């Protein structure tokens, strides 16, 4: 079939393209140009200028057409600007979800349809399973590279059209071996993991440059408003974190954590970790912009939820609400960060998810 492969220039998506080509598909490679690359390229992030050239070279060597898609303005609006906006609201956004949702799985996917493609493949580590009631999303075989949390917002319609061949790969070594077998240069390429558009190391610096109104130091206070210390800028804090609180832990005699970020007063509010994590009132989380990968059950669904990119599952019951929202009843109290994703799992299967409300 004619299949568009979203190529970052990295090893993973190159392997996908080569694999599909070898299977006899009519492969069309596409690389999104997400921002101006005239500056120095950042190694280890997924979209540096030289990666576009790498993707082109792979396409040329393996023998399929490759195109560079200008998505700069759309990426700036739908990812970078909303990333800064979220911090300016005191939230902690997940830009990779916004990018997958908009630029990749809406714009590029539509482009694939316009070009008469029957599917679009990416190098994501997640499994697409044809289930009895339609297509399902599952965690990949290689758990170390699981990207399902970042892909929860993929709609069922999008999932229908998408292919994730790497979801079946047992481990990284297997992918590297395939890359070598396919004649792809892998030794020099790093994996991408950082926020790709943060090119000088500090996401907070970028946010403060874009939203100067939130720049600058402020007070760290306890829940009663007593000043415990000073901070360097609210964009550097996330609800639930205990780092960057200086000597407050020793000053108060117990380990503290951020419970809220008050943007107008530029205050970081903290509380004692021990008490908060056992606070029974902190068991309810509300979600917005829900994406259900099952038919949303009115009575709710008992499942595991993951509240951050790198953490374990918590048991919960998730009930759909009006306005594409949901309510999560956690078994144990937790302090999730507004703006982050809450993704629901049943075994390996992703049931859906939403963004955490303040």
């Amino acid at each position, binding site marked *: 079939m004619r299949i568009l492969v979203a190529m970052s220039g990295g090893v993973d998506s190159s392997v996908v393209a080569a694999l599909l080509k070898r299977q006899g598909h009519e492969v069309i490679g596409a690389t999104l140009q997400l921002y101006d690359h005239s500056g120095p390229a950042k190694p280890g992030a997924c979209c540096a200028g030289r990666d576009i050239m790498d993707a082109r070279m792979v396409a040329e060597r393996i023998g399929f057409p490759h*195109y*560079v898609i200008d998505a700069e303005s759309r990426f700036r609006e739908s990812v970078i600007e909303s990333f800064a906006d979220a911090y300016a609201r005191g939230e902690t956004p997940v830009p990779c979800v916004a990018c997958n949702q908009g630029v990749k799985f809406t714009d590029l996917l539509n*482009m694939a349809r*316009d*070009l*008469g493609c029957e599917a679009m493949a990416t190098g994501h580590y997640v499994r697409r399973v044809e289930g009895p009631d339609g297509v399902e999303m599952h965690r990949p075989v290689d758990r170390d590279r699981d990207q399902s949390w970042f892909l929860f917002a993929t709609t069922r319609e999008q999932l229908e059209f998408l292919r994730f061949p790497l979801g079946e790969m047992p481990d990284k070594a297997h992918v590297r071996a395939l890359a070598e077998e396919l004649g792809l240069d892998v030794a020099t390429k790093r994996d991408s993991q950082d926020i790709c558009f943060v090119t000088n190391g500090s996401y907070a610096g970028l946010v403060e440059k874009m939203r100067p109104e939130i720049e600058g130091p402020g007070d760290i206070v306890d829940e009663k408003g007593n000043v415990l210390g000073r901070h360097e800028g609210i964009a550097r804090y996330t609800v639930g974190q205990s780092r960057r609180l200086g000597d407050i832990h020793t000053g108060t005699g117990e380990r503290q954590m951020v419970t809220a970020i008050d943007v107008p007063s530029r205050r970081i509010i903290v509380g004692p970790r021990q008490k908060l994590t056992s606070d029974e009132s902190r068991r309810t989380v509300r979600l917005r912009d829900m994406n259900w990968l099952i038919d949303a059950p009115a009575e709710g669904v008992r499942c595991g939820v993951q509240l951050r990119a790198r953490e374990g599952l918590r048991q919960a019951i998730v009930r759909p609400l009006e306005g594409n929202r949901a309510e999560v009843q956690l078994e144990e109290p937790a302090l999730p960060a507004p703006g982050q994703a809450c993704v629901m799992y049943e075994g390996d299967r992703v049931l859906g998810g939403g963004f955490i409300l303040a």
Partner: protein
Amino acid sequence: MIQGTASRNRPVYLDANATEPLRPAAREAILAGLEQTGNPASVHAAGRTARIMLEEARRQIATAFGREADSCVFTSGGTEADTLALHGFARVEGRPVLMGATEHDAIRKAAPDAGIIPVDGQGVIDCAALEDMLATQTVPPLVCIMAANNETGVYAPLREVAALCRHHGAFLHVDAVQAAGRMWKQDAFSLALKDGSLAGASLALSAHKMGGPKGAGALLLPEDRPLPPLLPGGGQERGRRGGTPALASHMGMAAALEESRKQDWKLLEALRDELETVMIQAGAIIMGRDGARLPNTVSAVLPGVAAQMQLMALDIEGYCVSAGSACSSGKVSRSHVLEAMGQEEAAGQAIRVSLPWNVAAEDVKAFGQAYMLMAQRFAERGVLKRASS
């Protein structure tokens, strides 16, 4: 997806304004040039032989434009010729620059602070505006006008422009890169050459737009005159361009030019016109169609469909066309040419089809079919906006 458009030749190359296929006569001339060991600057026998061949190429090229041989400065291409003209006539000799709004980046990027002469909706230089601009200049400027536009093929009114420049004491530089290898005697460029309008102007030429090799070009000066070089080097080209000339390439350029002048461009124009009829049926709007244009160029807007999508869809089917200007990464950007023509929206939805000198009629037909099918699919997908008529 698109079927029934099979053509004998794949891919079908329809991007002549980016580069023309090499003409056989040019190939022969290049091979003959490559056989020469001598450096044209050397005094010995081998050098003298190379020198004679280089000078013959120079004479051939200069004569074609009614110039004496020594007015021809060989360069690495059109961009260098344009840059050399701006360097010498503007930067060193102190003239301010006026340029047409649809000039190529070779000119635009070399004089970023230039005054911009507007064009009308057909892409034709607004001579009244030019006159006003010339009248307000305190120092006689350098005026840069392209003979024919690379995207739309639209010719500049060179006789009028030249007359205005003469009247106001302005120096005229003509980027003739697209027009020079496609002269069919009655075109605006040929006519302006023939009646002496361009006698005082410098001309930028590019070999590969004529069917010669890439990496060779020339700046034709009004006469044999000194010019401050960009590359002083060893004083080659009478001190106007250092570096050993690319003998074989310049021989290829001369041969290509000569061949281009024997071509029946009317045949190509007829194919182009037929193709435009098909493309219009498919829903396209042709840019600059009311003006005098190069015989091989189509600038077609498909309303609502991004140029990039059209390029990809056609490339997948085996047709090489282009859009706006492609940057080195391959990203397609908006056309500043169409923007200057007041076509804001269309500037991102236009492709350029430029028939090469050796195009096969059946390939043009097959392309028309493929274009038609592509437009149908975009219409089915709800992307293509049909003009309400």
